[in-house]
């Protein structure tokens, strides 16, 4: 169970998702979407318990090194290679309230831009001490943090010369299944962002900016690691008596 025992659990329906803020299903510049994008309008309905509830994960599933990608796959006494960084931020809802007890899973390429995955054939080397996965649980104030190495940019087969900007993938659980979200964090100042077909699917420039983590000197560790701040916003939910009026009453 999450650490919200002192608070009444939120039980209300979620605010509708602003689908125009997200990339549309079909973004032809990202070619794989052409055959994988549903073409009919999704059908909307009021949230039921099936959407308002979701799995809850407790601190017991989090291992000691889960938030340390520099060491969670490394041999004893060794560490992953590359620029060391701290990634930290808060999980908030659309009302700006912290969301505690949120499981965040993240994965990334190594410093050379190569994933530890048999489908990744990029010629950059694997780092024997880097697995590329980790997870964290948000605290009472919604905060989370992990340590890793800065991933490298990598080429991908889309156009003949497309490169993904450096990024970290995030998968986030909220308190309800309808909040489930996968996204990517990019790094401030990366010139590849503006050429990227994936962020290019976002129609509002502010949506792209919401995915770019700024360098955060206040959280760096001198002589060790720089830091980037990445806040995550999940869908908000109605929770007061006024807002919980049952449909049809």
């Amino acid at each position, binding site marked *: 169970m999450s650490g919200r025992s002192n608070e009444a659990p939120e*039980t209300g329906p979620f605010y509708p998702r*602003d689908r125009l803020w997200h990339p549309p299903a079909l973004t032809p510049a990202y070619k794989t979407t*052409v*055959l994988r994008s549903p073409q009919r309008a999704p059908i909307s*309905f009021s949230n039921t318990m099936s959407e308002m509830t979701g799995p809850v994960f407790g601190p017991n599933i989090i291992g000691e090194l889960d938030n340390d990608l520099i060491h969670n796959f490394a041999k004893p006494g060794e560490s992953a290679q590359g620029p060391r960084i701290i990634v930290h931020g808060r999980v908030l809802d659309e009302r700006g309230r912290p969301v505690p007890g949120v499981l965040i899973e993240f994965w990334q390429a190594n410093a050379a831009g190569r994933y530890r995955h048999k489908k*990744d054939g990029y010629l950059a080397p694997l780092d024997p001490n880097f697995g590329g996965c980790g*997870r964290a649980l948000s605290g009472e104030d919604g905060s989370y943090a992990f340590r890793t190495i800065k991933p490298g940019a990598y080429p991908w087969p889309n156009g003949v010369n497309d490169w993904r900007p450096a990024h970290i993938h995030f998968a986030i659980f909220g308190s309800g299944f309808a909040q489930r979200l996968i*996204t990517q964090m990019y790094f401030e100042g990366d010139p590849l962002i503006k050429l990227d077909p994936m962020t290019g699917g976002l129609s509002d420039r502010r949506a792209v900016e*919401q995915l770019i983590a700024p360098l955060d000197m206040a959280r760096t560790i001198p002589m060790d690691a720089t830091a980037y701040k990445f806040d995550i916003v999940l869908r908000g939910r109605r929770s007061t008596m006024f807002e919980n009026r049952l449909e049809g009453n």
Partner: protein
Amino acid sequence: MPQALDTLKETPSQTAGPYVHIGLMPNFVGIHGAHAEDLGGRMLNDKAKGQRIAIEGHVFDGTGEPLRDCVIEIWQADAAGLYPSPSETRGTADPNFAGWGRAAADPQSGLYRFETIKPGRVPFPDGRLQGPHVSLWIVARGINLGLNTRMYFSDEAEANAADPILLRIEHRTRVPTLIGTRTGDSYRFDIHLQGPDETVFFDI
């Protein structure tokens, strides 16, 4: 200018990409040691109440080719229709059933499979009972925003006929895209991303 509303925008979605397994099921792709076991691989233990079933199928792209790189999560009520969640206010769900599972398509065949129990019925907000169903969330390379759908059960024709969400589907010929077909204790649920049999997806 009136005061500003202090609302934030939801973080925009981005595709899970081809290497989603590294983050969600590292052991499945041979990354051992980081996490003892992949989350969501076991939904129940021997003491869980309810009828044991399997749900399996493929996710097909617009050419009819199965996706071999997708990950699917399911979320469902227990045999009594209760969810193991702090938002569940109607009772306490079966502690031996997780309600949530995660599976990757087989890298060769594209088949996905869940071993679970048949869920009980859950009310719609107005009190009418919904047909028993499993909620699904599908992510993969080429899917920009995770897809939400539901599977209902072919042997629940009467409950399905009264289900408020199935009733809402204007094009009745599309309803069968949401019904898993039973063979023994197994239900087949194929998902079509495009084409004449395109699965009904939901904006929840």
